[in-house]
């Protein structure tokens, strides 16, 4: 279940989005400013906005500002879009468009919403673990990524898999993963670093989304895992390095490691 930030004034549009994304949480904004604030404060997987939501405002310019501040957060743009709008939206960074004629096409809109909320970071982590740990371990990690922004703790993770904490710890050991506590710590770090790649987010807002009491607490966690300076880095290299460190901390499944060329 993903969080979608939406700016859709018309009831028909809201219903269309609701029908297309019944399993996702939608937070409604009344204007562009609120949409931006929502995405900054909450870990929205995607944004949806009617280009003409605010009369007199250049919606394309707002989309551009959104994509500059949140370059990794997809934004779907709805509405009556003429050729000029569509041209400008592509340059402005819109992820996809739902022209007026397609808004009632539930399958089509569902496809676009699903594509938009796809957790690419979870895929990236899974890709990094592929060949190092087995499918059960990767499934466990994936379930952690799906709920990392909900304040997930080790007992929650164990319960979600029908296990006791001690059994979960044993399984992680058998599968060659880090301990459950370290696993969740790393996932918070990775998601935090990923969100900080977006200029529109602050350390404080990211820390809050990850369940830390303050930015300072997150910084301490970062330093304890990744090391380095107290100011969290906001670069793709820093994220990749953190991912490498996480993978290295997972001992790996010996049978898989032995089978590697």
């Amino acid at each position: 279940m993903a969080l979608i930030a939406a700016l859709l004034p018309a009831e028909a549009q809201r219903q269309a989005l609701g029908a297309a994304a019944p399993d996702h949480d939608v937070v409604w904004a009344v204007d562009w400013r609120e949409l931006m604030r929502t995405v900054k404060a909450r870990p929205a997987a995607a944004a949806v906005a009617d280009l003409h939501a605010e009369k007199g405002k250049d919606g394309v310019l707002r989309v551009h500002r959104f994509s500059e501040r949140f370059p990794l957060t997809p934004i779907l743009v709805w509405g009556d879009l003429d050729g000029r709008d569509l041209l400008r939206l592509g340059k402005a960074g819109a992820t996809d468009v739902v022209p007026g004629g397609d808004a009632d096409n539930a399958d089509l809109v569902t496809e676009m919403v699903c594509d938009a909320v796809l957790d690419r970071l979870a895929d990236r982590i899974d890709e990094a673990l592929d060949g190092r740990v087995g499918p059960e371990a990767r499934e466990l990690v994936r379930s952690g990524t799906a709920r990392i922004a909900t304040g997930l703790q080790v007992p929650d993770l164990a319960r979600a898999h029908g296990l006791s904490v001690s059994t979960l710890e044993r399984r992680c050991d058998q599968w060659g993963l880090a301990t459950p506590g370290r696993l969740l710590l790393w996932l918070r770090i990775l998601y935090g670093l990923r969100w900080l790649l977006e200029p529109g987010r602050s350390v404080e807002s990211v820390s809050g989304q990850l369940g830390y009491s303050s930015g300072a607490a997150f910084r301490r966690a970062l330093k304890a895992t990744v090391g380095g300076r107290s100011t969290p880095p906001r670069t793709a290299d820093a994220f990749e390095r953190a991912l490498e460190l996480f993978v290295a901390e997972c001992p790996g499944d010996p049978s898989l490691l032995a089978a590697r060329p």
Partner: protein
Amino acid sequence: MARYDRIATIPPPRREDTFAGWMTLRDLTGRERDQQLGRRARLRFLALRPVQRLLRRGLSGVSARSLGMQVDSVRNELSFLSADDPERDRLMAYLAEVGGRTPAGLVNATLDVGGSAEAAGHTYAAEEFYRTGLEITRLHDLTELGIRSLRRLGRIHLARGEWDAAIDFYDRSAILAEASGDLVGWARGRRGIAAVRSCMGDAEEARWILDAVATRGRDEAAPMVEAMAAAGRCTLERHEGELEAAVEAGWAALQLMDEDEEPRNAVLLEMASCFRRMGLRSAAEASYEIVAVRSAWPEHRMEARVEHAVVAAEMDSVEAFRSRRDWLLEGRAPGDPHLACLLHLGLGHGCMAIGDHAEARHHLRQAISTARDAGLDTMLTRAEALLSALERNAGVTGPPRARVPAPEAARRIARDVESLGEALVQQD
């Protein structure tokens, strides 16, 4: 005055970094406020999206209901195009193929709509349709259609002066054709590369490439391959101003092609241009008469008929020009805007040649109006340029265009072409 638009200054995104079909809109760049073009670009964008959706999800990965809704939504927008706009029929046929979901049908439909956009000078829309078609051919092993798609992409990049990309696509088409045993396809690809080299100013390299194609055609007893090389050589030499070499190559190509092959008509049109420059009027007229009767392509037939009239004007045969012009205008006006533009552009040129500036203006304005309504940018540019030239030089009689003396070899070939024309008349 238009307000400053910050978005306009942002460079276009790469194809892989933007939403499906966006590249069809790139022809609007610099013309964002052209509402006609905007509506046409939007229509093409909406039309391409269902096919790209099928590409992403698989041909059977979209429900019939949902695809039908998406296609119907596009169909409802077709009323923006006038009933005689040829792109309207093309899009109707295209949408029918989208609903049919057969791979070959989809590719042919994308190539067709792409061709329409290309003819209008909207190269980005054409490119996006061709690329989409190419992706389908790859997924479904449609080699022949893949070769065609690659060649068309080569042509697009050639038109934009993007030499490296043009050569890459032509080369890939040639390689794919050769691997599948299609020697003529290989020759077409190599001919495309020669055309690029020629445009780059490297005529020697272009000649070398075409000679290699001709040699292979002879070695492998493939007359059509040799013919492709000769036809390419005809075009090259005409552009280089080597008119004798051009007609010699053209004549060689004609000998190797069957009478009903369409490329033969393209060669005759090239030769006709050369004959005109050399003052060999009868041969030029014979070439046009043959094409006007034999060609299956409306564009070739119209060009031949119109230029048949214009050549009379250029040779100061005013009565002959007026008579041919009247004949052309007597019949029903061509419904196809592209053909209508060809007609009026040509007749405008002819009227300019005989000094009838009022009629020339009428024809050119007609061409401009038609081109504008139909979004035919290439035609519009040509017509506007000709009208500007007319307005600049109106009342000023300049020297006639210098003719190139016709060597004996060219005269001999000219007589042979005239004989072809006479034989055609006797057959009829």
